[in-house]
Structures are given as structure tokens and as C-alpha cells.
């Protein structure tokens, strides 16, 4: 079914199509419509789920963990300060191996108060063990929720589906809502092998000494790494069933490119027409959009980027005292490569500053013009 819808509603529809059984969420701008639509769906019976009203995001995640531990397919959504408040329990969800799927709307952190987009909120949670998908269209948001459950439930790890505040959350565009039957075939009912079970009582997450904690961390890492292949496999399968294929990254005009732009989310979408323009002007420019940031697709990026003449990375986030996160990690992934290209790291669009096509062009053209990058951060458009 074709429908024009906003990014927030695409998250809700993704949860509905995935037949989420429990939703525990607390509203926050710019996420509110996600929760609104889901509570409507629960109220009118179109979604057979338990909707748990909570008093904070910390409680939202705590309730989600309880539901997931009981074996229910669980969904929640938040943004920015709300995600930060969840921080403690985000680690718990990973350690308890609970395949929760959460939408996070990228909103810049306060102070000063702001509601506009920036990735620093979710980047700050990159070490919690949550898998992170950065989306770049309304359709991809909906599809990613469905794929997220498919991956999460095989590796017993939680997944965050991330989208830009307003630029995606409040933008309406064409969306294809897949048939429920087909989604059911793609994403069958989930049987949690470790669920709370009164017939097989067990104590979960109890005190574990240095003799075994280390091994439990090893298992998380191994399953996180396994999800790299699973994203490619389940993304291909999604393409076969629904006509839209997804992977760890998306490439555009990359084959013969000597200068490659690495970007994510909505900036990587606007980058495509920017690259079209530069191609018409004779520049061999290509794009790698990083879709899955955790686990970081290091091996794939080595394959795609080693041997190129120049690489530039645009970050709508900043790790103060270092650089943008996508830049730092892309650079780290290529460090041991003999043919590692010089890499430029641009910061753009913090706090929702618009990143129009000509600004993306500026960054690419600056990279082409310069011999070698100077420093780790190039600030774009800072006012004098």
C-alpha cells in the first residue's frame, strides 16, 4: 500500500508490521508522534500490543527489558536527553542479551535547549553494545525496524534505528507499506531461548566473578561481529521479498571514483545530487553511506576505500577533543592498510544547521583542491 507519511510514523508502522507485543515509551520532542500513533494503534486494536505508560525514559527501557526478558517482541523510541537518561539500562539490555528494537531521533544535546538534529546523542551510546542503523529515507526507517528485529533476534542483541530530527522525523514522503503476510514470512514469531520461564526457573544476571565475566563479554563481541554478515544476508533477503535491498553501507557512483565521500543519514542523501553535479563537471567523485555504525563495517570500508586518491568524511556529531565519530572510526579502520588514502574530516550541521547541496559540494571541492588534510577537524560554515 502506498502512503505519504512522516519519518516518525514510519517507525510506528515498522513496529506494527513487526507485530511488536509490548511498547513502553515516554514522549519527547521530536519523537512524540511515534508514541502517539502506536498508542492509537493499540487503542483501536489494529496492533495487538501492551502499551505501558512510564514516567521516564529510564523506566521505558527498564519496562522494555522486562518485557523482552519474558519473551515479548518489544519496541520503544526516544531522543537526545531521553536517550541519555537511559544510558545505564542500555548497557543492561545488551548484557542481558535482550533483542529490543528502539527508534532514536537524533536531536542535539542541551544546553542550550534545542530540538534540532545532531548525532551526538546516539554516538555517545556507541559503547553500550547496541547495534546502530543510521537511516536516510522515510521508507528505510520502516524497513529498518523490520530488519532490525530479524538481526536482533538471531544474535540476542538490542538494535537502535536512528533518524535525523525533523529532516527525517517530520518530513512526509512516499512510502510503500509492505503486506503483513509478507512481513510475517520474513520475520516469523520469535521464541526466546532464554526467556523467563516458571517451568525452568533460573536466576539472571547475578553476581559473576572475574572467572566468567570476561567470557560473557567475548560472546557479546562475537555475536556483534556475526551481525555484520547477518545485515548483508537479511538485507538481501529483504530485497528479494520487498524489492528494496539494504546492506551495511550504500554506495553511489563509487566504481571509478578517485575521491570518495563518506557520510551518513540525511546528509548522505543530499550528497547524491551533489555528486551528480560534480560528475557532470568531470570530477570522479563517489559516495559511501555508512548505514550500520555498530558494528562498524571496518573490513568492508577497507575494501571500498583503500587505494583511493582521497577520502572525506562528513560528521554531524563531535567527540570533543578528537573529531567526528565517523571520521575517527573510518580512519582507524584503514590505519594498517598500505594504500590508505589521506582522509579529511569535516564537521557540519551541528544543532540542526542545514547542510544544503552547495555546502556538500564545497567540502568535496575543498578536498579535491587540497594536497593533504590539515588537522583532524575542518569546521564548515562557522560564523565570524
Amino acid at each position, binding site marked *: 500500500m502506498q502512503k505519504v507519511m512522516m519519518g516518525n510514523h514510519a517507525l510506528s508502522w515498522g513496529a506494527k508490521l513487526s507485530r511488536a507485543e509490548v511498547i513502553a515509551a515516554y514522549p519527547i520532542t521530536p519523537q512524540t508522534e511515534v508514541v502517539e500513533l502506536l498508542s492509537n494503534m493499540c487503542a483501536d486494536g489494529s496492533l495487538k500490543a501492551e502499551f505501558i505508560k512510564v514516567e521516564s525514559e529510564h523506566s521505558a527501557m527498564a519496562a522494555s527489558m522486562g518485557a523482552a526478558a519474558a519473551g515479548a517482541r518489544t519496541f520503544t523510541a526516544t531522543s537526545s536527553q531521553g536517550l541519555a537518561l537511559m544510558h545505564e539500562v542500555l548497557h543492561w539490555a545488551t548484557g542481558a542479551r535482550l533483542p529490543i528494537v528502539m527508534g532514536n531521533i537524533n536531536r542535539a544535546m542541551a544546553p542550550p535547549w534545542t530540538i534540532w538534529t545532531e548525532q551526538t546523542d546516539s554516538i555517545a551510546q556507541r559503547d553500550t553494545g547496541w547495534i546502530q542503523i543510521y537511516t536516510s529515507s522515510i521508507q528505510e526507517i520502516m524497513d529498518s525496524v523490520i530488519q532490525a528485529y530479524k538481526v536482533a533476534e538471531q544474535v540476542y542483541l538490542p538494535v537502535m534505528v536512528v533518524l535525523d530530527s525533523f529532516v527525517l522525523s517530520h518530513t512526509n514522503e512516499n512510502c510503500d507499506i509492505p503486506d503483513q503476510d509478507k512481513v510475517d514470512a520474513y520475520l516469523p514469531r520469535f521464541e526466546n531461548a532464554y526467556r523467563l520461564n516458571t517451568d525452568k526457573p*533460573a*536466576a*539472571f*544476571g547475578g553476581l559473576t566473578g572475574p572467572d566468567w565475566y570476561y567470557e*560473557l563479554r567475548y560472546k557479546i563481541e562475537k555475536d556483534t561481529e556475526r551481525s555484520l554478515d547477518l545485515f548483508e544476508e537479511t538485507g538481501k533477503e529483504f530485497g528479494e521479498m520487498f524489492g528494496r535491498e539494504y546492506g551495511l553501507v550504500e554506495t553511489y557512483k563509487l566504481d571509478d571514483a578517485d575521491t570518495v565521500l563518506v557520510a551518513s543519514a540525511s546528509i548522505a542523501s543530499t550528497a547524491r545530487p551533489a555528486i551528480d553535479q560534480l560528475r557532470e563537471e568531470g570530477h570522479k567523485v563517489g559516495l559511501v553511506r555508512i548505514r550500520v555504525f555498530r558494528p562498524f563495517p571496518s573490513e568492508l570500508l577497507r575494501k571500498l576505500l583503500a587505494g583511493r586518491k582521497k577520502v572525506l568524511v562528513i560528521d554531524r556529531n563531535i567527540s570533543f577533543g578528537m573529531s567526528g565519530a565517523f571520521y575517527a572510526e573510518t580512519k582507524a579502520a584503514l590505519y594498517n592498510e598500505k594504500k590508505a588514502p589521506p582522509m579529511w574530516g569535516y564537521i557540519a550541521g551541528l544543532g540542526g544547521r542545514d547542510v544544503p547541496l552547495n555546502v556538500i559540494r564545497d567540502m568535496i571541492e575543498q578536498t579535491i583542491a587540497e594536497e593533504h588534510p590539515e588537522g583532524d577537524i575542518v569546521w564548515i560554515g562557522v560564523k565570524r
Partner: protein
Amino acid sequence: MSEEIKWESQSDMPLMAMSLGRMTVNKTGSWRNLRPVLDKEKCIKCGICWKFCPDVSISIDEEDYPVVNLDFCKGCGICATECPKDAIEMVKEE
């Protein structure tokens, strides 16, 4: 039922810490150096000791007297402290 989940190696270990089956496998009675002993003459069968025992180690028998399960009693002495008739005495374990 007191099934204990045990593993020998990392590979047969569950994904998360499920170190025990039921807590009944964890016999905390070995931690005890004082043992509660009931004086039935003084006991009024009020059940306060049963209510306060933090390890649920006290049950009530057919005559309504408290019975301590020494497999689990840690000897904390809360029952003796709370007893309104001083009917429980903490005795040194030999």
C-alpha cells in the same frame, strides 16, 4: 526441583549470566556460626520470626511452631531480635 545450570567451557555457557537454577542450590547454611534455638515454652506462635527471616528459612509446622531450615539459615539472628517473648536463643555452632 533444584536444577543447577553448570558449564565446563565458554562454548557451552549461556549468552548471559544464568549462574544458578533455583536459589535452592545455594546452601547458605554453611555461612552460619550462630544457630537459632527455639524455646517452645516461651513461644506464643505469633509468626513474627517467620515474617522477618530474610532468607525465608523459617517455616511453620503442623502445631504452628516455627521450624528453621538449617540448610539455608545464615544465623543472622534477626528472628531472635524480633521475637517479642525472647523465645529464640542464638547458640554457638560447634
